[in-house]
């Protein structure tokens, strides 16, 4: 399969940015809803929905 990486790169970069921002936030935060290590796993392994899930329900106000 001949993939045009120039076209797919923006999507990968976006997902990467989401993941990094979520990871930095989870590491810096004092407390999360649920165990921290679980959120790290969710952010790393559930595609782009992982970071979103963390932002929506993982962060404590």
């Amino acid at each position: 399969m001949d993939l045009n990486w120039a076209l797919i790169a923006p999507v990968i970069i976006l997902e990467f940015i989401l993941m990094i921002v979520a990871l930095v936030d989870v590491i810096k935060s004092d407390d999360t809803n649920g165990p921290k290590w679980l959120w790290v796993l969710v952010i790393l392994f559930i595609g782009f929905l992982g970071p979103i899930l963390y932002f929506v329900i993982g962060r404590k106000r």
Partner: protein
Amino acid sequence: MGQWFILFKKECMESWRNYKWLWMPSVFLILGLMQPITTYYLPDILATAGELPEGSEISIPIPPAPDVIAATFGQFSQIGILVLVLASMGIVAGERASGTASMILARPVSRFSFISAKWAAMLLLTWLSYLVGYAGSWYYTFLLIGEVEATNAIGAFFVYGLWLTFAVTLTVFFSTILKNAGIVAFLSIGSLLVISALSHTLTKLLAWSPGRLSVHASSIVSTGEGADHFFLALSVSIGIIIVLLILAYYLFKQKELVE
């Protein structure tokens, strides 16, 4: 007006602190870019993944460009709506649960400003995210599949945007009358799914429904014209959005008196 703008800015700052300005446009952009990409590579993906007998020809015609934009609306209607509901479920309910709302409302702040500033800030974020995703989809469709008539694409953008506006307004409405954000999300997604499903099946009976807007948007992007009863659905949707907002304000005011 000055007071309204302060509330509006406060709401935008709040969304910034929750990273909503980052993740909402990102989700829409990812969805928008992936639709043309997967459409374009679908024959290749099937060729590598499918277990077809040796030598069989695969001929999946690449759909016309407007159909790819219509398919993007389909993506926005699923994950897009989910994201919008999750982002706006706590907009009033969360503040009431945490006590922030009563702190703000202890000052001489108009209840209508309070609700409408939140609603407007959420809509700004919604339209910006949607614009980014839509532009991305349009651009990639142009690169990979073909051109879409600009006036059609822009017309469809606004019509479908009204459906998203309706979804956000409904969520804000539930968020005003209920205290639990989880229940708000559940009710909003549930009713949006029901409205959408019913409007797609009972096309005659529900010709006026906001759920028909996605059908009209898909029709506009390919033919330049909405489906039957387009203006009826358009005006009723705008009407329902305004009524929901005003109703949210009255119920919010009354609820406060009771508490």
